């Protein structure tokens, strides 16, 4: 339990990770409570992406503990698949399945992993496409969509699994400036609906407006964390001040 009475849904304790000799994570410890929106910022190579990819075990941490919704991440296959179906992930490069239509992209995992019938899955998919604002694109292929539309489909695809947590790995970095807003709007709506979200992004406007908490990382560690207000008006650490002065 945290001070505001909400349950911890992600617990990271001293998480470390190496790529060969290079240490990408140098001991990350933090907790995320239910319905919290955490924005992670930092320079490239600071370990932001590596960390959130550890949370659904696309990367394997070597030391420390990660507990997601009461299940500790170990190499046990069943744990991993269970966690992955409850943690949605949105990628920088969308990673839609190019050989399937938009609708099939969203129904595939529902029928195979969640074991829903085709009719249920399609109903859910159409409702989600409605929610992200592109129901008319259902029968097109991803290649025929703009980047912003593709990213919104990717969000709908993750939401279709009814995840408890959503991870966003630089969701707007590959988009034209004009398309960033349409994706951010969907994410804002999602945050307001009470989804637990971890967002790696360079969109400071989004962090200021939506985040409950901002985490600044550098060199594989958490340098400073606090409310957006604290961050953008009164940063403490020199490294944070330097970073913010260069991007704002």
């Amino acid at each position, binding site marked *: 339990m945290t001070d505001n009475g909400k349950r911890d849904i992600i617990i990271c304790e001293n998480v470390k990770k190496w790529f060969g000799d290079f240490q990408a994570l140098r001991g990350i410890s933090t907790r995320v409570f239910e319905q919290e929106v955490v924005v992670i910022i930092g320079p490239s190579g600071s370990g932001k992406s590596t960390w959130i990819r550890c949370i659904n075990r696309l990367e394997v941490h070597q030391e420390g503990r990660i507990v997601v919704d009461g299940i500790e991440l170990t190499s046990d296959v*069943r744990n991993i698949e269970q966690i992955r179906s409850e943690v949605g992930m949105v990628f920088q490069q969308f990673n839609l*399945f190019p*050989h399937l*239509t938009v609708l099939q992209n969203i129904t595939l*995992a529902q029928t195979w992993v969640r074991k829903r019938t085709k009719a249920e899955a399609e109903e859910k998919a159409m409702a989600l496409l409605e929610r992200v604002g592109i129901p008319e694109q259902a029968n097109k292929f991803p290649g025929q969509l703009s980047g912003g539309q593709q990213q919104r489909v990717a969000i709908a695809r993750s939401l279709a699994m009814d995840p408890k947590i959503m991870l966003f790995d630089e969701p707007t970095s590959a988009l034209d400036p004009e398309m960033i807003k349409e994706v951010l709007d969907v994410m804002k709506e999602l945050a307001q609906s009470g989804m637990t979200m971890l967002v790696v992004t360079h969109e400071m406007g989004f962090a200021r407006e939506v985040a409950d908490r901002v985490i600044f990382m550098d060199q594989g560690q958490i340098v400073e964390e606090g409310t957006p207000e604290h961050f953008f008006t009164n940063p403490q650490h020199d490294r944070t001040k330097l970073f913010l002065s260069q991007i704002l």
Partner: protein
Amino acid sequence: MTVYVAPELKPPEPPPEARQLGAWVWLRKNLFSTWYNSLLTVVLGLAIVAGARGAFAFLLSPDRLWGVIPPNATNYAVDVYPRPELTRIWVVLAVVMTLVGFSAATWRPTGKTSWGTVLAVIRATGAAVFAVGLLVPGFFGGRVPLLVAGAVLILIGAVGIRAAGERAREENLPILGVVAGVLVLAVAVIWLLPVAETTKVPWTVEALVLVAAYLVGRPVVRAVGEKVLKVVLSFLWVLSLPVIYLHLERKPIIPWETVISWLPWVLPILAVGYLAIVYNSRAGREQAAAVNAVLVVAALGTWTVPAPMAARLLLLLLVGFTLAAPTFASSEKGRRNFLVGWTGAAFFLVYFVTLSVAETGLETQGDFLGGLNLTFLLALGGMLLSFPIGIMMALGRTSTMPIFRLLSTGYIEVVRGVPLITVLFFADKVVPRFLPPGLDFDGVVKAIIAIALFSGAYLAENIRGGLQSIPKGQYEAARALGMTTAQMTMLITLPQALRAVIPAIVGQVISLFKDTSLVAIIGLADFFRMARDIVPNQPTALGSQIENLVMAAVVYWIFTFSFSRASLRLERKLGVGTR
């Protein structure tokens, strides 16, 4: 600095008209642009004319014995297949035609072409015929009809294009219509030429069966739905191969005594199969693995004791089903499909094995499948079987499990390291020594298996290339959605990989088709061997080997060229929507 503000945004304009180049301008531009290019054009042109004249002089010389080929048409098609039983071949062909018709109705090629293209092809054909007429040496009678025919075709094409004008370029002619037109033309030609009644009538009937199947297929597709029919037809195509083979080779079609003697084995295994599949689809990983382990031991155990071949193979088949059950049969619907699939596969396996070891009542000497018939059977069988082998080996080689990787890599490298002839010899002479007594396939089956194993290794490397071209993000997205490795492979990576390597796969299929000619080495009389040895050695055809080989080359070319054209269409069709 000056400020510019656009008054209003411009609407799009049509592209500028492409200027039609006259023939003279085209020649100037492409063949005679400079004095040394002109020189090159003249010299090469003379060389081509000289070469063509030489070739035609050879091919059309009065010494050539082209006359021996038409009377041997039946031999080329079926070799020594007993003539009173030829109706079996026509029946088989009718079955294939029915499948083709239904498939055409289901996969309905929606491609369109234009009258302009068709007329241009006619014009080009006319030009080619006319050129042949010009190049034919000497002044014998052959020249005039060629020149006249060529001129007529050119005229039809040119006048047609002129008359159609702008409309010639509209793509409004369905490909299926063109194919139907060619079919009608082919049937008409058979009836106009002096062809024996015994050839004319059956081929006309086969063409009618094809058209009828298409026409019946349309309403069936509407009633049953495209998706269901696609699955059913795919199964029927795979099943057609052994059914065709057995129908051609066995008489009676089903030996009931053998079937009944096997039932005490087959029925219990069938029942065990139901239980194991249902159990595995619900049980956890460990329990399912235990069931699989017991079944593997039981399956291998039956090979050490006297048991019917059907029982041994049935148990191996069951292992495949139970292994896949936890992944694909965990939903109510998946389980039902799995049980139906198991029943079907089991019955089919028993049918096939029963017939392969049954005596045949057909009156003949030795292997009696031959000619084009055999070439097709080898190519079709090799192709169908090499796909599962190739896919499994490709997945094995990219697997993270060292044992699978080692076995697949070893298999691929060994098979690719030896010539096909070696593999054929090995299958024919060595493998039978290791098989348990009572199981000796005949030469055709051994050849099919050898070709499939050989081609499978090459296919595996092609598919591996495709798998490596899939971006890492696709794997991550599939994993992030909670898919298991099996689901990821079957639903995400493999379909994309296969699509990416269609050109390489078609190349492999073409070389497989041509490689079937090597079965002559193990004594089978395929189309090529008919042309090289059997037909030219008849007393009435002595000294005609070259003519027969040229004809064989043309036939092989027609088929391989059609393959590569068809694959181009397939590529374009599957390319829709990919990035």
